[in-house]
């Protein structure tokens, strides 16, 4: 639930409401026949706009829009014979179909441009009316982009990318622990693995986003923090190895309480990393204490009763590594906060 209420998502909701409100006001003020295109384009652009006020992203977005307007100007004219329009639409579709692999990975933009091109070509207008239509689309674009600049101007992209990464790591650790704690894992292995695969993918993509932002900021501290996050991810994945190594999952019932406590402590640490850095140290200390409880159980019960005690020992060791890496992160955090 927390992902729906972060300051970023609230910003996005505010942005969408403002675009919606402005588009409605402008729509009724203009009252023109072509005003629907303005309304339509304001929403399309708010849907595909980059969630940033970075100049390079906005310029790229503006150029994409100009290209779209140019396509509409060409295909939406009555002086172009209809067979030629069909040919142009086909050419546009062929070019667009080639784009995803070479230029943009966002397939939605390609689909939307095709929809616009088809609509414009099927309802061709005289040059002046067509120009008005394109002008309306530009107004829609400017509504979306103006609010974008206002709302996202003071956005710390680096911090946002980090928040997304920590959220992704939180979900990954919860997913890993669910494999150990849910009795259904051994029966519904593929559905658990699919969830885990999605969380791992999410983490990898968040890493790439953060890496891009670090490249922009070129900060040494951020670079160090990034490597630290990498190590935390590596250890988390290493902890997850237990699900493949263990042959008898009933062994985990013996330490279910300890594992549940570790799961809760981990969630608290991620939350502290996101919102309450001052509580991070306490959270990690608590996590350490929970790991020691699991170790106690291991020393007294599991070491004797488990058929493969080594794999459980490796889990405990990896959890300790995780704690250590998080502790290093606390120091990084202090530097980060003092910066």
């Amino acid at each position, binding site marked *: 639930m927390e992902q729906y209420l972060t300051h970023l998502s609230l910003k996005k909701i505010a942005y969408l409401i403002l675009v919606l409100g402005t588009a409605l006001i402008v729509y009724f003020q203009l009252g023109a026949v072509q005003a629907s295109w303005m309304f339509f384009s304001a*929403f399309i652009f708010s849907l595909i706009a980059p969630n940033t006020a970075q100049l390079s992203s906005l310029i790229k977005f503006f150029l994409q829009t100009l290209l779209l307007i140019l396509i509409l100007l060409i295909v939406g004219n009555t002086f172009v014979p209809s067979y030629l329009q069909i040919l142009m639409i086909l050419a546009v579709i062929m070019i667009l179909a080639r784009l995803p692999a070479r230029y943009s990975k966002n397939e939605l933009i390609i*689909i939307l441009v095709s929809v616009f091109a*088809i609509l414009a070509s099927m309802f061709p207008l005289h040059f002046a009316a067509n120009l008005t239509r394109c002008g309306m689309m530009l107004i829609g674009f400017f509504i979306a982009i103006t609010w974008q600049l206002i709302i996202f101007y003071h956005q710390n992209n680096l911090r946002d990318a980090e928040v997304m990464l920590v959220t992704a790591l939180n979900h990954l650790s919860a997913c890993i622990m669910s494999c150990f704690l849910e009795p259904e894992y051994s029966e519904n292995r593929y559905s658990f*693995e699919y969830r885990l*695969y999605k969380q791992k993918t999410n983490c990898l993509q968040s890493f790439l986003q953060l890496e891009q932002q670090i490249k922009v900021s070129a900060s040494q501290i951020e670079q160090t923090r990034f490597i630290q996050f990498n190590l935390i991810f590596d250890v988390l994945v290493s902890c997850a190895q237990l699900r493949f190594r263990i042959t008898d999952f009933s062994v985990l019932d013996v330490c279910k309480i300890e594992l549940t406590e570790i799961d809760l402590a981990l969630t608290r640490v991620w939350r502290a990393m996101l919102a309450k850095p001052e509580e991070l140290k306490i959270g990690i200390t608590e996590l350490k204490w929970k790991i020691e409880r699991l170790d106690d159980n291991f020393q007294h019960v599991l070491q004797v009763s488990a058929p493969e005690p*080594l794999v459980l020992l490796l889990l405990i060791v990896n959890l300790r590594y995780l704690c250590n890496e998080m502790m290093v992160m606390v120091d990084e955090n202090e530097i980060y906060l003092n910066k």
Partner: protein
Amino acid sequence: MKSISINKDLRQGLRLCIAIIAAVLIGHSGIFTHHVVLLSTWIILAVLLVNQTTAGTPLRQGILIYTVMLAAVLSASLLNEKYLALIVSSLCFMLAAYGAYLINLKKLPVNHPLFLVIYFSLILIISLQIMPVNLLLHDIMLALIIGAGIGIISHLCLWPDSTENNFRQSMAIILQGLSKYVHSLIDENSAKKKHILYLLQEGNQIETVLDSRQSAYEIGFNRRLRSGYRFFALQIGRLLEILFAMEYLISKDVIAKMPDDLAEKSFAVLRTNNELLDALSHYFRDQASFAKPSESGDDIAALDQALATVVPNQLALLDISPDYVMYADFARELKDMREVLRGLLNALP
């Protein structure tokens, strides 16, 4: 048609072009007596959207998109008040845009359910604002059926995406990436930053380039292929995890701290693992000239022996030095990797 080997994007573009030509011809063939242009546009829109499917389950995805389009047109016909229509379409777009923001649309394949919400709001707003549907509801529904039919048939008959080829290609890419990474471990002894980033880059490529892994989990996917695909997807995922885990240990200088004999034996296992990876990758690239490699497991036995001379056999004594646990962990990762590779090779026909 299947035998013509053309690029995936080009194939998709050509297929769409042929489908659109068919849509225009059918639209103007006299099937509609009035509003021919308007109804042809609906056919073309249906063709365009129904074609936005991925390999694996195109029929199911096409029918879903058609149903969503139909629902949007019917909803538009029920909204007579202009203000109400504007608010409903705006809310739908808001929902779609917020969903796109939360899930990060750039990562998603076109068969993600969020695209259906986007298509719904798109068709709703077109029906309400640009091409009002009230007077022509029956004809528009007919046009949508024709468009969806053309879209689905073209997807199934014109250069259909071969699930098998997609899967084969994706496996070859992944295995090649993993093999390169293991090479870099062998060559340089220790993991540097660039390796971590390299693998991440590779990971991104793995997850986004081809969606065959995703399709193996979808409802409606070929049942005979599903179990095999899932097995390979799971094992490849495990291989990636093992490499991440090894990377962590290497970043903590496990190899540098190891006694020479143990390090040598570890590298020997790593080299054989890499040979097996290469063989697997070769199989997926070129099945015809593939010969199953044989490995005796002697290197694993030698590694166990070397480990036993360094690390105490008793579990309780492993705690004496943190390095002992690290060596045992690293050796375990190497053995797990071999086990996975053996399983994958044995699963090949």
